[in-house]
């Protein structure tokens, strides 16, 4: 069972997605803010295979969270992959910016 760390400040969104992913047999740990996520990742980075975070073009703290999580990932082949979720109103530049930071990007419906 793949373990997923989900960072989303919106509680209802995070709950809905985590319930859904658990139904898909992913094990999900939800963090409300980046500090919490950094602490969890520092404790047991190897336990997670995917990190999911919600990003928006205008929220600088989202990009800071992405950078701080990225910095924590130790070089090595089995590091966790990063998946950024962004709204349809954010343009292709957000997707490109996230992908240049080594993440994959998914546009929320």
């Amino acid at each position, binding site marked *: *069972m*793949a373990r*997923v760390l989900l960072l989303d400040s919106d509680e209802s969104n995070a709950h809905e*997605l985590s319930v*859904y*992913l658990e*139904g*898909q*047999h*992913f094990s999900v740990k939800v963090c409300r803010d980046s500090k919490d996520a950094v602490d969890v990742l520092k404790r047991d980075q190897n336990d997670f*295979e*995917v990190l*999911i975070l919600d990003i928006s073009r205008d929220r600088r703290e989202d990009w800071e969270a992405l950078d701080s999580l*990225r910095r924590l*990932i*130790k*070089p*090595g*082949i*089995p*590091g966790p*992959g*990063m*998946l950024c*979720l962004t709204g349809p109103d954010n343009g292709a530049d957000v997707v490109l910016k996230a*992908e*240049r*930071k*080594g993440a*994959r*990007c*998914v*546009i*929320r*419906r």
Partner: protein
Amino acid sequence: MERTWFLRRNAKGQGVLLDDRFLPIVRGIEVLLAEKRSLIAVGPQLRIFHRLGVPPNRCSPGEEILGVCWIHRGREFPLRLSLSSRILIDYLCRCRLPQTAAQIEAGIRADAFYIRHGTNGKAGSQVRMIKKRAVKVFVQRVRLALRLAFIQADVRLDPRAILVSQATDTNVATYRLKVRAEWFHV
């Protein structure tokens, strides 16, 4: 907003009803997991470009190793390598078994592809014979080139896990390149 629900099999093979809003997220996770599995199983993908070949022969003596690129998510990241380092990478990609510095030197010296490297061109000598004692230095240079490419792509990979050196039963080290290589002829 109207939602579409549909039936899909989960990891345990059970049928579950899914809300299609989240489907791209599940797909994204699956792609990341597949990417990771591939990295663990076969390592990153390298594309080695040969030129000056005489069709229809491929990888024949006289060709030149033009360059080596690391392929990541469909993009090419050229490795900044000298001629000797390109020869070392090409050789290690062909020989999948771990080899000592002495075996690498002997293998390159015995292979007509490297003995006549680049001789189909009209430029100066493109032949390089890597000496046993220099292998360690070239290994470090290749790792540095990989590191620079990984930094460029912002990917957290350790070059030492890709160009692997392992101790043998004596103090001699063996070298192995843990990559999936493909050769392109241009």
